[in-house]
């Protein structure tokens, strides 16, 4: 097949592309420029798309004998990932920008352009597996649970999955690094990137404070309704958060206080004891299905954080609203995060959490 390998300049995408070459595919490499003003060097594990990364990608492509190009997707990235991130936080939700990037950039803008230019598939270094089942290409968890990225790929539609290749899904990170070393790929020991790439210093709250106009408001005790303190802007708070409230121990009962609700419209942060965070029903919207829709009442597992546990639940889908009822209650579910549904290792689909609540039985 004629495939387009997205090379970040890191070890994973380089090995993924190398495996595609080994498998006999005709590989062309692209590096995605997501910023118009890239920094020269990456500092530690943070940030991405630096000139150094671009050069590393170029050298990896050279070693594979693959033609190499840089695609400028900075406008799309700015609009669909960074601005979405800001507007979601402004609305009091907690978005996952990596997932949005996969949805809008890597497997939409890039895949569409690749298909138009005559490629059959896009190859990336994501850790997930594609299995050809009765309903076509299925997305499954990677064998390395530490690295499994099926959660952030949950936004891929069946059509997108059928034009994707994830050659690393059957390997562990250790194996991939060793293979990179063996292949002479110079970035074999480069640190993994993590956190949010467009916030290179890792200070999300500080970055947001520069993007969003915030005004001080009240911190309210959710149980009594009385004011117990002030905050510098409700947008910076996430349900389940404990640190950064600056309240010490407001009620003197020795119980820790958590953010239990954020009301951006009224600029209020509600706090309460952990028991108030207990929920067992999650509602999520804007579903993206990786294959056939689940049947109503189907027993599934749901994952609500990138490296969270898969929780047993049942699911109902009505008019594009996905209602997940958890078998056991959990604490602190933030709106804006993705709920990804699994049938065993297979991804069923993903939806954005709009709200969570307690059932009458809880």
């Amino acid at each position, binding site marked *: 097949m004629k495939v387009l390998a997205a090379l970040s300049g890191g070890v994973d995408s380089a090995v993924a592309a190398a495996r595609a070459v080994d498998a006999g595919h005709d590989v062309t490499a692209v590096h995605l420029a997501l910023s118009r003003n890239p920094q020269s060097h990456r500092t530690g594990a943070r940030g991405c798309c630096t000139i150094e990364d671009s050069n590393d990608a170029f050298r990896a492509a050279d070693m594979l004998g693959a033609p190499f190009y840089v695609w400028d997707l*900075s406008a799309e990235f700015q609009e669909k990932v960074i601005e979405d991130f800001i507007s979601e936080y402004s609305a009091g939700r907690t978005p996952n920008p990596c997932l949005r990037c996969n949805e809008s950039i890597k497997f939409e803008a890039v895949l569409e352009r690749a298909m*138009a230019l005559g490629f059959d598939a896009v190859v990336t270094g994501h850790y997930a597996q594609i299995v050809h089942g009765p309903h076509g290409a299925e997305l499954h968890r990677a064998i390395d649970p530490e690295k499994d990225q099926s959660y952030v790929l949950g936004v891929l539609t069946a059509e997108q999955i059928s034009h994707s290749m994830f050659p690393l899904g059957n390997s562990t990170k250790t194996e991939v690094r060793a293979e990179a070393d063996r292949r002479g790929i110079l970035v074999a020991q480069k640190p993994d990137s993590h956190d949010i790439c467009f916030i290179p210093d890792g200070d999300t709250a500080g970055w947001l404070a520069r993007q969003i106009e915030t005004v001080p408001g009240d911190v309210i005790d959710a149980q009594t309704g009385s004011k117990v303190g002030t905050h510098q802007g409700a947008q910076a708070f996430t349900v389940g958060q404990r640190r950064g409230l600056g309240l010490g121990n407001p009620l003197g009962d020795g119980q820790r206080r958590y953010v239990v609700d954020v009301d951006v419209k009224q600029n209020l942060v509600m706090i309460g004891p952990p028991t108030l965070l207990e929920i067992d029903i999650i509602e999520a919207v804007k579903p993206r299905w990786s294959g056939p829709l689940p049947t109503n009442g189907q027993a599934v597992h749901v994952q609500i954080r990138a490296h969270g546990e898969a929780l047993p639940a049942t699911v109902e889908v009505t008019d594009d609203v996905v209602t997940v009822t958890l078998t056991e209650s959990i604490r602190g579910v933030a709106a804006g995060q993705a709920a990804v549904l699994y049938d065993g290792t297979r991804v069923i689909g993903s939806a954005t959490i709009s709200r969570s609540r307690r059932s009458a039985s809880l």
Partner: protein
Amino acid sequence: MTELLASPGNPSSLHSSGRRARRHVEESREKVARALGARPAEVVFTAGGTEANNIAIKGIAWDQRDKDAKRTRIIASNVEHHAILDPIEWLVESDGFSITWVEVTSTGLVTPEALRSALGDDPSDVAVVSIMMANNEVGTINDIAALTAITAEYGICFHTDAVQVPAWQEVNFAELGVCAMTVSAHKVGGPHGVGALVISRSCTVTPLIHGGGQERDVRSGTLDTAGIVGFATALEVGSDRRAETAARVKALRDDLITRVRTVIPDAVLNGSLDSRLVNNAHFTFPGCLGDSLLMLLDAQGVECSVGSACNAGVPQPSHVLLAMGSDADSARCTLRFSLGHNSTQADVDALIAVLPEAVERAKRAGVPRTPAAERVNA
């Protein structure tokens, strides 16, 4: 040249190997001077066009300001190569100079009127004027003698970046009336990493690199004997064959333009029809990202260029096209086909054979939106 790579002499040394190397350098200097209508003493060898441009812009600007503190204004066209634009921007940002850009016409030409308008009523504050002889992207050739006639009225130093020109037409330094002129070896078929700044005897420059005092103290540093000999030989041989080569390449280029317009009727030729480098064809292909076309044609063995790329390899809308009045989106839909002395009819035929399908595919892939910030700049 390869023989000299193995020869140990440093042309600055006084022993016999050194003198031998020195002789090669000085013979080369004479050849370069002869080919460019200059005197040998006016040729300062550099490590390429970028260095020569930096010496010209910074060196002349500093020297002029040292002589007259009022001279802090630089004038240049807004379609110059980055090796001119960036030193100017650095002087403006970091060293107290100001810049007046000369606007070009829609074909990329600098007119005498535009230069007069940039000079203004009182040009006594101008340190240096730099206008390129031919544009590296769209190939438009300026009438430098007509422009230096204006600066001569005021006794202002005029520099021209002539890197693109000597391969295709005669360049006569003395007749141009410039103070300084940049040339580069690889643009005349010589090695990469060698060039020269031709500086008239009446013009002084403040050096950028200090050291052993080579090259009239303008450019210290051990000379690259082999590179310099390669440069001089290429220039000499090229000059001898220039008329014949240029006529042949022009015929091929004209054929290329005609046939591109036939197979892609909405293609727009950018730049000037008559005042143009004979090897240059530059088109806008509406709705096709130049970037996509480059990739598709590259896969078919046709090597062409988009405007320019930043140091991370990100293709940028060409500042030349923007200056010529193009909008940011169509400035990204351009492609340059440059012919060389060894281009053949078969090369043109091969391009015409694969271009229609590439254009069709590139159109399907679409043109991503230009970032808002760059629209404002446009």
